[in-house]
């Protein structure tokens, strides 16, 4: 049986996908720009090295969907863009049907839904319905399975054919894992559930200990403590005396500087976290963090606290970081007397007093 999917995503999505054809109706996306927490959907945020959206596409492929087209949906009042979107949608759907596809999945991607495609196809075969709508409890999801043969026998535009068979639709009860993916907290729940094996998303990399995964090139200091479950992304560095607890996820190319504790967090790619900090209950990005308990975004422009790992400033004096690492790594050498000026990381007790240097 040949199966294809047309996935529509909101117009504000910017993504590179692994779909067969990605049709950007309204311009191209900028894949090089880091995705800010506030301005994008959690579906696009990276989890275990891939966006959640790409994880879903992978699941569709493993479920037997051979062809996937992604369209950016236009729902604005711009009539031209709106009609352009629907023209494109019609063209893609008609192309699949005329090429003999047996079944066509129509999905409006807004949530994380682990659909059992095999069960859905069996249900359609059993009922013989030309249109199957997926429901979760009593609520219809934006997932519809269209019978290719039934639609090829009708005439008119694809949308008009959809409307004509709508009264004959059957409902398929969805029982799998669902996450609305509307808020940062939803993303954190998905990350935690995935670490605990409750979803089909699996950490990539090596499971160095039960429940602890390291991506390729991850470097974790011997004195760092990592509690399971945890994920340390590829090329990420976790320095001396750090702790990672609470089912935390640290994506790739990050640096967690020495003495810092990460608890119940997701750290996005290429994030630098400074020395001796305590990060808890947060989604952390180079530009700041979202505190999950307070439901609050805190923008941080201090590169000594948080920053882009590729741009972070070195602390002054030049050997301060080395002294801090030496101090916090439990060296047998005599205690190091650290001196800072007022612009240094506040978590190190300053030795400078009013009116004189320490």
């Amino acid at each position, binding site marked *: 049986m040949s199966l294809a999917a047309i996935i529509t995503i909101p117009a504000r999505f910017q993504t590179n996908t692994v779909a067969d054809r990605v049709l950007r109706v309204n311009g191209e996306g900028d894949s090089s720009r880091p995705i800010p927490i506030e301005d994008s959907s959690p579906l696009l945020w990276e989890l275990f090295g891939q966006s959640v959206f790409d994880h879903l596409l992978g699941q569709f492929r493993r479920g037997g969907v051979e062809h996937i087209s992604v369209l950016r949906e236009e729902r604005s009042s711009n009539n031209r863009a709106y009609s352009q979107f629907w023209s494109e949608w019609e063209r893609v759907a008609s192309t699949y049907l005329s090429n003999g596809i047996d079944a066509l999945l129509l999905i409006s991607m807004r949530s994380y839904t682990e659909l059992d495609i095999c069960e859905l196809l069996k249900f359609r075969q059993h009922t013989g319905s030309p249109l199957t709508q997926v429901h979760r409890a009593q609520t219809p999801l934006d997932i519809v399975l269209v019978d290719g043969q039934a639609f090829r026998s009708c005439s008119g535009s694809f949308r008009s054919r959809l409307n004509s068979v709508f009264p004959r639709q059957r409902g398929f009860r969805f029982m799998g894992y669902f996450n609305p993916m509307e808020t940062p907290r939803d993303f954190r729940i998905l990350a935690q559930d995935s670490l605990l094996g409750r979803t089909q998303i699996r950490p990539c990399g090596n499971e160095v200990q039960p429940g602890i995964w390291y991506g390729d090139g991850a470097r974790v200091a011997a004195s760092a403590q990592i509690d399971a479950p945890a994920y340390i992304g590829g090329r990420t560095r976790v320095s001396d005396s750090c702790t990672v607890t609470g089912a935390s996820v640290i994506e790739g190319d990050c640096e967690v500087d020495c003495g810092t504790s990460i608890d119940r967090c997701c750290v996005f790619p290429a994030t630098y976290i400074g020395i001796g900090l305590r990060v808890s209950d947060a989604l952390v990005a180079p530009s700041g963090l979202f505190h999950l308990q307070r439901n609050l975004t805190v923008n941080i*422009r201090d590169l000594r*606290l948080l920053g882009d790992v590729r741009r972070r400033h070195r602390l002054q004096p030049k050997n301060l970081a080395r002294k801090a690492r030496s101090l916090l790594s439990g060296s047998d050498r005599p205690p190091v007397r650290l001196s800072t000026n007022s612009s240094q990381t506040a978590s190190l007790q300053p030795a400078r007093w009013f009116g004189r240097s320490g």
Partner: protein
Amino acid sequence: MRNHSALVVELPEFVDAKRTRRLIRDMKAALRVDHVNLTLDLSRVEEMDSAGADMLLQCMLEVTKRDGTLALAGISPVAATILELTGLDRVFDILPDAPPVVAEQPAEVFEPAAMNVLPGEAVQSPAVA
């Protein structure tokens, strides 16, 4: 008994490297008062960096050097997050709200005569003189 002076300072919205230098400079004269009970009101703080956190520590050092006390009050959610991030939430005494005596002038305009240092209504310290 030793009399303590109560002083409440409301910090501005942005407590960053650029502004803390001036804040420290403005507060130096005020903090040379012995036995001051200083409360820093952080209710207006919308952005704070490591320099701001360092300023809080310097205030504490200066106050305790003169047998005074320092507390933080009315901490905004942003300030609370930064204090937790840097571990300073465990260092300071934290009050839910600033005491009733509040400086009307913003902290940038900081004149000793305008501060609410109240020798006439000094709070009597429980400490033994």
